[in-house]
């Protein structure tokens, strides 16, 4: 149920109203699935804030943990600089 946000001047690339993990219970958050969580880091490797990603607080927390774990075991970069 993603109601597209109005193109209201300050539209920013990705924007959605509904947390995708709440919307789809089958989506799992797993730090081992680097492809799945790559979506939630910026080009520079930073964690995308939930005001942009649209995640609810609960799932954003889980995403954060997953990203940090993935970074720790070199499945994901800490920064974009190295590559």
């Amino acid at each position, binding site marked *: 149920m993603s109601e597209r946000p109005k193109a209201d001047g300050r539209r920013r690339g990705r924007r959605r109203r509904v947390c995708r993990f709440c919307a789809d219970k089958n989506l799992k958050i797993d730090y081992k699935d680097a492809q799945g969580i790559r979506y939630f880091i910026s080009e520079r490797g930073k964690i995308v804030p939930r005001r942009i990603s649209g995640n609810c607080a609960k799932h954003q927390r889980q995403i954060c943990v997953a990203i940090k774990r993935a970074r720790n075991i070199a499945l994901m970069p800490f920064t974009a600089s*190295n*590559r």
Partner: protein
Amino acid sequence: MANPLPKHRAREYETIFILDPECPSDVTDQIAARLRDVIARLEGKLLRAENWGRRRLAYPVRKHNKGIYIYLKYLGYSDMVAELERNLRMIERVIKHMTVKLEEDVNPETKAVRDEDISFVPQFEEEIDEPAPPAPVEAAEPAESDAPACASSGSVELAEGEENEDADTSDAGDEPGSDEEEK
């Protein structure tokens, strides 16, 4: 009746460790055997083992740009992680490792293991053209602070390997034993 009875409640963990990319398969097998011994000796139970093959690392680790990822899932008691990680630290070929607790209070009998769950054969091998070019000696920049993106707090335990040049990973989490399979 001298069964070494299962103390009933175990914890479930998973450990990922990375071997240096030139580690030959027979050495990988030796390492696997050693870790299985540790788990068996401490009355744990190996539930799953996977070899993810040689992968590109997201950042250089000990000058390596690639590494062989091994994944283990197992049950153990309170002494398990310390002992397993002690072994991992002693193995020269292991360049990084991380352990995560998945579940707090597991009855070992509810966890069935099939033979095919445990394999140290590489699942997929990234074709590796050049034998890992020498990494330039500019170390990875320390992580920028992305603190405000999430408020971390919680209880999921992250026991991490000691040799993290850039370990910013604080433990943080969701409710205990929430995610990951239950079954």
